[in-house]
């Protein structure tokens, strides 16, 4: 029973920041940015909730209110793909960075269009400079630090945006 209660509590807790951020996510962009600063835990439940509600615009496959503007008919818009992916998978990406590789980091590399022959260098860079790159708790901050680290690297500089 305790597990049940726990599971419910986790869901509720995790959902709270996102709900709170919802009201503020009316500015330009798709809302992910706003939510990220509310703590990364809030983003995922939004995507996970995956609730489509007939009143939400006219999406064929909407994800949820929180991702409105990030996606069309359930497909994430190209310009938001990286932010949304990082926001939703922070823990796993950081773990891969510290370990020097893994599925989540390889996926990030692919989103940043890192060529297969540069992947190993990308893994090494994120491991070597982990302490500064992974310090931010939010996706935007992490991506900004990653950009700085890439820009300073002779081989990988071309992947900095």
């Amino acid at each position, binding site marked *: *029973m*305790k*597990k*049940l209660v*726990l*599971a419910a*509590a*986790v869901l509720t*807790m995790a*959902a709270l920041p996102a709900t709170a951020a919802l009201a503020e996510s009316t500015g330009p962009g798709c809302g992910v940015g706003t939510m990220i600063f509310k703590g990364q*835990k809030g983003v*995922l439940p939004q*995507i*996970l*909730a*995956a*609730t*489509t*509600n007939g009143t939400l*615009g*006219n999406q*064929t*496959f*909407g*994800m949820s209110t929180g991702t409105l503007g990030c996606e*069309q*008919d*359930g*497909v*994430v818009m190209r310009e938001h*793909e990286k932010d*949304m*992916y990082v926001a*939703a*998978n922070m*823990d*796993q990406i*950081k*773990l891969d*960075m*510290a*370990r*020097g*590789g*893994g*599925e*989540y980091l*390889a*996926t990030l590399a*692919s*989103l940043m269009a890192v060529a297969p022959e540069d992947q190993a260098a990308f*893994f090494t860079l994120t*491991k*070597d400079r*982990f*302490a500064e790159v*992974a*310090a931010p*708790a939010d996706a935007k901050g992490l991506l900004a630090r990653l950009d700085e680290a890439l820009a300073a690297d002779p081989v990988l500089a071309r992947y900095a945006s």
Partner: protein
Amino acid sequence: MPRARAVRAVAACAALAAVLVVAPAARADGDPTYLTELIQKARAAHLSDDHYWHVLMHYRPRAWGGFLSEVDGADFFNAPDGKRNPEAELEATLAAFFAPLPEDENVQHPQCRFIGRYTWLNTQLHFDPERLPPQTCDRFRRWAGAIRPDTVVLVFPSAYLNNPPSMFGHTLYRLDRKDRPELLDYALNYAAQVPPDPGPFYAAKGLFGAYPGKFTIVPYYAKVQSYSEIENRDIWEYDLALDPDQIDRLLMHAWDLGPTYFDYFFVKENCSYHLLSLLEAARPDLDLTSRFHVWTVPTDTLRAVTEVPGLVTGIRFRPSRGTIIRAEQDALPKPQVRLARGLAAGRIDPEGDALAALPPKARALVLDLGHDYVLHREADANEAEAPVLAARAQDLLVARSRVDVTGEVPEVPVPDTPPHMGHGTQRLSVGGGSRDGSAFIQVGYRTAYHDFLDPTPGYDPNGQLQVLSVEGRAYVDEGRPALHRVTFLDIQSLAPWDGFFKPASWRVTADWRERRTGECGPCGAFGLRPGAGIAAALGHQVAYVFTDVDAAFGTGYDHRYALGPAAEAGFVGHLGPAGVVRAAVGYTRYALGDAMGERRFLLAQRVPVGHGAAVGFRFEGSDSPLVEAVEGQVEVHAYW
């Protein structure tokens, strides 16, 4: 690569544009006399009786004749009686294709809104583009172009007892593109849209279709997060052999269904049922859903799919975070596991001497495990703990990044038996035995799903879930059969402690049992027994202790009821080819109603025989005044 694809997409758009240029004068209204012609042609060809029309519309024959569509959203039908009239719907759909262009760019033209139907009717009736101008359907094409799967994977996150809709597992599709990392592929999911605060009648509402069920599309990583990272459910992936035309049909039909809904019935019209029906739209030669009449268990749908020759080309396993942690624990000697726990608890400094003393490889593993512990705990943390744990996880990762070992997750052993190879979920049992010297024979049938003694391969060894099981018994000296026991619901979730994971075990049983007492002869009692407990594992054996609340209602009791606390200690042992043994002793102190005590014991073993059968014995007894007896029986079970 992306460039080549983009060029192709542009070419396709150009071709469509050309079609439009050929008939620029024809407004989308088209030629009304052409509609009459098409309808006549459709009638002559009996298109509304065509199997594929019924697949696209989800028409099912009704017991008393006629048809009824399973789709419940009115927006899915063009004819007012479209839900039950295939012919009227087909003709109204044709008429809708002649609609003028919508004024609002957000509203789809019927040709696009129902692109699966449009495409099929076009192959049957060969629409004249001059008289029925085709729409470009940019929105659909943009969507399909972004998803653009090369293959379709049937994904099965394993059963999860702590979430009622997931107790039997769940299924969804992943739409895989070869050049895209798996995590970024799209998951096509069908689920009940349950409001955030569903209230106490959630389960009952789900049973009776009170929630709308909808198809949704989300990145696969969102699904992996929820199953693998949060709920700790291992995921099985079944690759399906579908050719590009079949995948197109699946996508188009999914698009037709996207905006509408079905009433979601947990028992039959659930995720697995509708996923199969989508596969029927892709491959009309398959009949997968008609075998499911009353209920649809996800593992049974896996079986239905794997039974189609050549349909499943590969099966893969994606371990959950919990499974990975266990593999990491197993890979380390005990003192190092303790070190990792110390790190997770914040007692040991990740940069300190204890770790520095380890060789780099071991240090890396200990830090990995320590971090995974923290992450696991963070998932359940409250608001005060969460920031502390997040900072600790970060410190461990920083220390890990300084160890010059690039490490992947340790090799996680893949279970020998994928879920579709487990025993069938229906069970028929025949047995015979003796109760205090009276011989009896017994026959039982269970609709679903698994108990601890059933063959374990393919199932969670620590989960028991039985729904509607009926046992009848005839005593040789009485001659006539009588109902012995009806189990409405029986869930037992054993969650062993292992030093780090300290989960709670829980269970609940609702049943009716025959009571044989001197006063009322054979009579019965309803019982409801919820309980909580703890369990510990020693290798493949699990010992448990439960405390329950035992409520019994029936004419055999004084005041017609008895209520009190109960306790049980027991043991479930997995002996490989020798099957499973279970032993338990229990005591109930009925304090209210018919106040009395009852002591019980059980000893049972069941051994699998080939695939789909098992033999076993049960030896049990009770000293309750109502059922005081000792009985033993041998049983044969068949599963399908």
